[in-house]
């Protein structure tokens, strides 16, 4: 069965410092990977998808199939980045839902 692991429940960094949120996955096929962000008491918003290889709000994520990782990075954290971040996997095809990691609560300190 597919699985997504986010090892850090809580990550606290200072404003301006680099941020890396870790995500590892296990899946025997070719997954589609996503990062979602949830600001306080708001809906989940799609942040990044590995297929598009884009940068959103300064965040990037690269799929490393050898290490089965999809870490989220930002070179300089901003206070408005404080939120819950979820890594998610979709098995591809059909109407499958997303398998989420347990989330990392990112706190940016001033």
């Amino acid at each position: 069965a597919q699985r997504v692991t986010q090892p850090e429940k809580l990550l606290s960094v200072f404003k301006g410092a680099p941020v890396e949120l870790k995500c590892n996955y296990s899946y025997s096929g070719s997954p589609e990977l996503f990062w979602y962000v949830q600001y306080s008491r708001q809906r989940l918003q799609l942040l990044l998808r590995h297929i598009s290889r884009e940068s959103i709000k300064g965040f990037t994520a690269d799929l490393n199939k050898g290490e089965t990782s999809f870490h989220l990075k930002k070179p300089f954290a901003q206070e408005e980045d404080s939120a819950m971040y979820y890594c998610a996997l979709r098995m591809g095809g059909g109407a499958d839902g997303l398998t989420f990691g347990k989330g990392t609560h990112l706190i940016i300190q001033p």
Partner: protein
Amino acid sequence: DTAVSQTPKYLVTQMGNDKSIKCEQNLGHDTMYWYKQDSKKFLKIMFSYNNKELIINETVPNRFSPKSPDKAHLNLHINSLELGDSAVYFCASSQGAAQYFGPGTRLTVT
């Protein structure tokens, strides 16, 4: 506004009651989903549904049932509510891989 919407936003009810949560999307998407976010912020797929198939997460009790009157709506019916059903329920829709989430319904069972 094009979006995924849910009603009600908050729902407080007693054990044993039957309740429904409504979800509507005007994005023209083919597939809709229900997710449960527990008190530890862990997100788990409950159902995914399009006009051809319903995929049920095997861990979901049969007290939960999705009902889709048309392509734009996927309502969630819950019978005989239990304390453990207290959570935030998110509806989502997709056309392809990326999913777009509703604002959530916070269900409290007393």
